[in-house]
C-alpha cells in the first residue's frame, strides 16, 4: 500500500489520490468498527494507519498541481467531480494534520473507555467526508459530503449519551438547518449560472437572487463553522461528547470546512464588495459572535464549556475578517483559522489531559496542576498566550490583520473586536490561574501524574506550532498568500504588523485585562471568581442569569417556535379531521334521520307525498314548456 502510495505521489496522479483520501478512511472505518473491543490495539492501529495514509496522501495532494476529475454520477450535471487546487490542497493538508494529531491523542484517551470502536469509526468517516467536501468540484458532491458530516456528528454525540441524547439532537437539528440553508443557497446560486460545477462559477453579484444565494450559502458555512446563531450546541457537546471530539470537529475540522466555504463563497463565487450591506451584515454576525460568546466564556466554571465558548468567539474574529471583503481581512481570517485550530486543539487536549488524570474539568475542584502536570501546564500557557494575542505568539499576528481590516471598514467593529480580546484574556487568566496555579487541588490528588506520552505528543507539537506560527509567521503566510494571489496581489503580510498604533492598543487591552484580573483576584481571593465583579454587575447579572437558563439560546427559541407552530398545525389538522369525522357524518345522519322520520308508516302520508310529487311534475312541465 505504501509503495502504491509513493508511486501515486511521484506520478502526481491526483484522481487516484482523491480516491485514497475518501475511500480508504471509509474502509478502515468499518474495519475499526468490526474489530472487537478486546483487541483495542488493533483498533488503534487501524486509526493511526488510516490517518497516516491520509496525511501522506494530503501532502501529495498539496504538492500536486491543479487537477480536476470528473465522473458521471446522478445525472443532470450532478457529476462526481473533484478538483485539487491550492486552496483545497491546503485545507485538506490541514485536515490531515489535525486528524493525525487528534488520532494519536484519542488513542491514548479512549483506551479503556466505552464506545472507542464507534468513536474511531465516526472519526475516520468524518475524515473521509471532510476530504470529499473540500475536494469536491461540484456543488452536489460538496453538499453530499458536507451534509454527510451530520451523521457522524450525530454519532459522535450519541456515543456516551444513550440515556440523554439531547445534545445530539440539538447538534443535528442546528447543523441540519444550516445544511439545508446551504442546499437552498446552492440551488439559488446554480439558478443564476446554470452550472453545478464549482469552478465554473465566479464573481456573481450579491444582489437580487444572488443576495439570497449568497446569504444562504454563508449561513450554511457559518453553521458549519459554529458562528452565531448556530453555535449553541457546541458548549453542550463539549460536556457530553468524548473529549477528543472537541479538538477534532468543532475545534479544527468544522472550522476548516466552514471557513473554506465562507472564503470561497465570499471571494470566489460571489463578489462581496467591501463595506456593502451584505459585507456589513456578515461582519455584524462576526462581531456579535465575538462579543456574546466571549462574554459567556467569561463566566464559565467548567474548562470544557469555557473553551467551547472561547472557540465560538474566535470564529467571530474569522467571520469578521472574511466579512470585510478586504484582502488583509481574508488573509487574516485564513491565518487565524490555522492559528485557532492550533491553539484551540491544544487547549482542548490539555483540558482532556486534565480530565484524563483528574476525572473532572470543573474548575472549582481543580488547582495547581502545573506542579504535577508541568508539560501540560506549559503547553496550556503557551496556547493561552496565543489565543489572547500576546505579541509574538501566533494569535497575535492573525488578529492584528483582522483588526486592520475591521478598522478599515468601521471603527465600531474594531472596537468590538478589541473588547473581545479583553474578554478572552480575562477568561484565560481566570482559567489558567484557577486550574494550573495555586494550591494543588483535585478529586484524586494523590494519584495525579503527567498525562501519558501519546497524549503529550500532539499537545506539545501544537504548542510548538503556536510559537512557530507566531515567531516565524512567514512560514504559514507564505503558504497561504499564494493561494489568494489573484486577490491580494503581491502584497506580503508576514512579519511584524505594520501599524504600531494597533499593536499598542492591543497591548494596552491585554494590560487592562491583567489589571482587571488582579483586581478581581484581590477582591474575592479566588482565581475562579476573578471576574465575579463583571458577572454580578447590576445589569449584567440578570442577563447572565438568563443566558445560563438558555433564554438566549436560539435553539430554545427555535424549539418554542416549533412547538407553537406544531400545535397550530395540529389544530388545523384536527379541524380538517373534525370536518370529515364529525361534521359530515352529523350532516348526513341528520338528513337521513329526518328522512326516516318523514316516512312514518302512514299510507296517507305516502299519498300526500305522491300528490306533492304530482304537483312538482306539473311545475316542471310548466317550467319546461
Amino acid at each position: 500500500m505504501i509503495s502504491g502510495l509513493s508511486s501515486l505521489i511521484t506520478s502526481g496522479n491526483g484522481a487516484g489520490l482523491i480516491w485514497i483520501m475518501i475511500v480508504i478512511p471509509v474502509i478502515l472505518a468499518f474495519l475499526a468498527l468490526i474489530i472487537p473491543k478486546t483487541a483495542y490495539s488493533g483498533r488503534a492501529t487501524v486509526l493511526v494507519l488510516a490517518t497516516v495514509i491520509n496525511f501522506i496522501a494530503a501532502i501529495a495532494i498539496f504538492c500536486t498541481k491543479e487537477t480536476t476529475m470528473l465522473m458521471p454520477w446522478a445525472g443532470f450535471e450532478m457529476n462526481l467531480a473533484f478538483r485539487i487546487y491550492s486552496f483545497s490542497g491546503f485545507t485538506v493538508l490541514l485536515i490531515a494534520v489535525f486528524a493525525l494529531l487528534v488520532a494519536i491523542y484519542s488513542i491514548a484517551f479512549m483506551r479503556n473507555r466505552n464506545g472507542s470502536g464507534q468513536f474511531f469509526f465516526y472519526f475516520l468517516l468524518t475524515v473521509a467526508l471532510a476530504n470529499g467536501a473540500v475536494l469536491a468540484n461540484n456543488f452536489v458532491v460538496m453538499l453530499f459530503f458536507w451534509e454527510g458530516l451530520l451523521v457522524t456528528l450525530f454519532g459522535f454525540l450519541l456515543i456516551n449519551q444513550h440515556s440523554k441524547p439531547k445534545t445530539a439532537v440539538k447538534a443535528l437539528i442546528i447543523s441540519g438547518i444550516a445544511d439545508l440553508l446551504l442546499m437552498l443557497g446552492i440551488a439559488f446560486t446554480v439558478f443564476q449560472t446554470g452550472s453545478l460545477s464549482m469552478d465554473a462559477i465566479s464573481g456573481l453579484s450579491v444582489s437580487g437572487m444572488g443576495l439570497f444565494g449568497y446569504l444562504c450559502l454563508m449561513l450554511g458555512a457559518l453553521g458549519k463553522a459554529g458562528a452565531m446563531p448556530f453555535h449553541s450546541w457546541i458548549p453542550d457537546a463539549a460536556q457530553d461528547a468524548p473529549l477528543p471530539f472537541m479538538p477534532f470537529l468543532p475545534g479544527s475540522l468544522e472550522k476548516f470546512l466552514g471557513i473554506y466555504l465562507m472564503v470561497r463563497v465570499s471571494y470566489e463565487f460571489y463578489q462581496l464588495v467591501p463595506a456593502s450591506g451584505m459585507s456589513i451584515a456578515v461582519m455584524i454576525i462576526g462581531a456579535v459572535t465575538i462579543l456574546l460568546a466571549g462574554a459567556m466564556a467569561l463566566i464559565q466554571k467548567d474548562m470544557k464549556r469555557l473553551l467551547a465558548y472561547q472557540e465560538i468567539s474566535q470564529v467571530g474574529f474569522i467571520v469578521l475578517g472574511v466579512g470585510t471583503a478586504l484582502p488583509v481581512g481574508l488573509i487574516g481570517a485564513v491565518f487565524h483559522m490555522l492559528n485557532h485550530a492550533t491553539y484551540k486543539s491544544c487547549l482542548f487536549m490539555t483540558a482532556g489531559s486534565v480530565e484524563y488524570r483528574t476525572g473532572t474539568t470543573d474548575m472549582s475542584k481543580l488547582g495547581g496542576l502545573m506542579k504535577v502536570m508541568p508539560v501540560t501546564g506549559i503547553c496550556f500557557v503557551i496556547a493561552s498566550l496565543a489565543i489572547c494575542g500576546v505579541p509574538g505568539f501566533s494569535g497575535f499576528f492573525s488578529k492584528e490583520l483582522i483588526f486592520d481590516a475591521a478598522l478599515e471598514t468601521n471603527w465600531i467593529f474594531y472596537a468590538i473586536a478589541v473588547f473581545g480580546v479583553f474578554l478572552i484574556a480575562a477568561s484565560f487568566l481566570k482559567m489558567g490561574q484557577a486550574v494550573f496555579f495555586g494550591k494543588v487541588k483535585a478529586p484524586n490528588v494523590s494519584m495525579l501524574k503527567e498525562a501519558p506520552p501519546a497524549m503529550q505528543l500532539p499537545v506539545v507539537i501544537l504548542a510548538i506550532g503556536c510559537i512557530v506560527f507566531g515567531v516565524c509567521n512567514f512560514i504559514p503566510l507564505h503558504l497561504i498568500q499564494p493561494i489568494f494571489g489573484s486577490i491580494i496581489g503581491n502584497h506580503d503580510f508576514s512579519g511584524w504588523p505594520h501599524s504600531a498604533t494597533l499593536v499598542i492598543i492591543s497591548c494596552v487591552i491585554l494590560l487592562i485585562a491583567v489589571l482587571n484580573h488582579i483586581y478581581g483576584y484581590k477582591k474575592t481571593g479566588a482565581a475562579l471568581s476573578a471576574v465575579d465583579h463583571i458577572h454580578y454587575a447590576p445589569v449584567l447579572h440578570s442577563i447572565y442569569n438568563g443566558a445560563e437558563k438558555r433564554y438566549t439560546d436560539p435553539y430554545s427559541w427555535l424549539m418554542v417556535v416549533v412547538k407553537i407552530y406544531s400545535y397550530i398545525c395540529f389544530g388545523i389538522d384536527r379541524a380538517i379531521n373534525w370536518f370529515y369525522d364529525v361534521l359530515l357524518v352529523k350532516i348526513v345522519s341528520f338528513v337521513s334521520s329526518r328522512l326516516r322520520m318523514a316516512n312514518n308508516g302512514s299510507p296517507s302520508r305516502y299519498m300526500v307525498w305522491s300528490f306533492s310529487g304530482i304537483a312538482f311534475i306539473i311545475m316542471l312541465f310548466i317550467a319546461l314548456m
Partner: protein
Amino acid sequence: MEGQGIIFVCIFVPLIGAFLLPIVGRVMPRLRNILALLFVITAFVTAVIALPQALSGTPILWQMKLPLGFTMGFFADGLAVFMAMTSSLVASIIVFYSFGYIEHYPNQNEYYMMVVLFIGSMMGLVYSTNLLLIYLFWEISAICCWRLIGFYRGKDIVLRADKAFLMTVGGALLMLIGFISVYMQTGTFNLLEMQGNTITTAAMVLILFGILSKSATLPLHTWLPDAGVAPSPVTSLLHAAVLVKIGVYVFARLFLVNFQLDPVWDTVVPVIAGVSALVSAGAAMVETDIKRIIAYSTISQLGFIFLGLSCGTMVGAAGGLLYILMHSLAKGGLFLCAGIVEHSTHTKDINKMGGLAKRLPITAVAFALCAFSVMGIPPFGGFFAKYMVIYGAATSASPWLAVMFIIGAVMTIIYLLRVFIKVFFGELTHPDIKEGSWEMVSSVAILGVLSLLGGIFINLPSYVTTFIIESLLNL
C-alpha cells in the same frame, strides 16, 4: 409478442394469483405464504426484465380496440416500469416481513389475498393506457386497502377502514367525473390518443381531488394517519410502497406526460403540496402514536414528491421520481421498524417507550438509516431526491416555493429525531423484550441497507429517472 407476455405476467400473476391464495391457504398455510411472496417477486422480476425495452425507446404496447373510445391497453414505458419496480420491490420485502408479523392472527387467508391483489392492482394501474382501467385498478386498491385496514376487526378499526375507503372512493368518484369530462372533450378514454391535449380547469380540479385523496394530501389526508390501526406491514404497504404512490403516479402520468396544463398549476399544486407538507409536519411533532407520526411524515414527504413533479422543471420531476423510490424504501423501513417496536412493546405511544436500542439494536440501526434517508441526509438516498426537488423548485417559475420546503425539511429532521430518540434512547422502559422474528428483522435491515446503498450508488436509479424524465418531457 414476447414483450407483451411480460407485462401480462407482471400484472396478472399477482392479480389472479391473489384469488388462489385463500384456497391454498386452507390446505397449506406455509405454501400460501411462499406463493404470495413468489407472486409479488414475479411482478418485480418481470418489471426488471421489461426495463431495458422500456428504456430502449420502443416501449411494449398491447391494445384491445373497443367501441366508444373505450380502447384498452397496457403500455410499459419507463415511468410505468419504474413505478412497478419500486412498488413491487418494497412490497416483496413487506410480504416477507408479514410472514413473521402476521402469523398469530386470524384471517390470514384474506390478508395475503388482499396484499397480493393490492400489488396486482398497482401493477395494472401503472401499465394502463386507459383512464377507465386506471380508475378500475384505483378502486381495486381502495377495496384492498379497506379490508386490510380493518384487518383486526375492532369496531373502531373498521370505522377507520370505512373512513379510508369513503375518502378515497369519494375522491375517485370526483376524479371519474373529471375523466368523463376529458372523455367528452376528446372522445376517448385512451391516454395515448389524447396526448398533448389541454384539459379544462374543471377537469383538472376534479382529477386533482382524486389524486390528492389517494395520495393523502391536505385537505384530504386525514384517513392516512387513522389507517395506522392496520397491521404494520399493511400501513407500510399503504403509506410507503403502493397506495399513496398511486396518486403520485397518476399525477405524473396525466399531468407530466399526457396533458398540457395551464402554467398557473405549476404554482397552485406546489402550494397545496407545500401547505400539506408543513401542516402535517407540524402535526407529526405533536402526535405521540408512533405510526401516526410516521403517517404524518408520509403526508409531509408526499408534498415534496408533488412539488418535484409539479414545479415544471426537469430536475424537479426527476427528483420527484427519485423521491418516490427513496421514500418507498425508507418509509417502508420506518413502518416495519415501528411494527417490530409495537410487536415487542405492545404499545404505540412513544412516551411509553425508551432506550429500546439496547434491546432492539438492529431495528434501531435500521430505523436510523431509514430516518436519515427520509430526512434527506447524505449518504442516504433521500438526500439526492430532496436536493433535486428543492433545486427544481428553486429554478422553477416561483423559486420562493423552495423556502417553504426547506422549512418542511427542517421539520422533518426535528420530528423524526424526536421519534427516534424517544423510542430508542433514554431510560429503558421494556427490559425484557427481544428482537422480532428473523423475517421481520432481516426485512427492516434490508430496507435500511437499501436506503443507504440507494444513496451511494445513486447513479443507477438516477440514470433511470433521468432517462425517463428526459424521454417523457422531450416527446
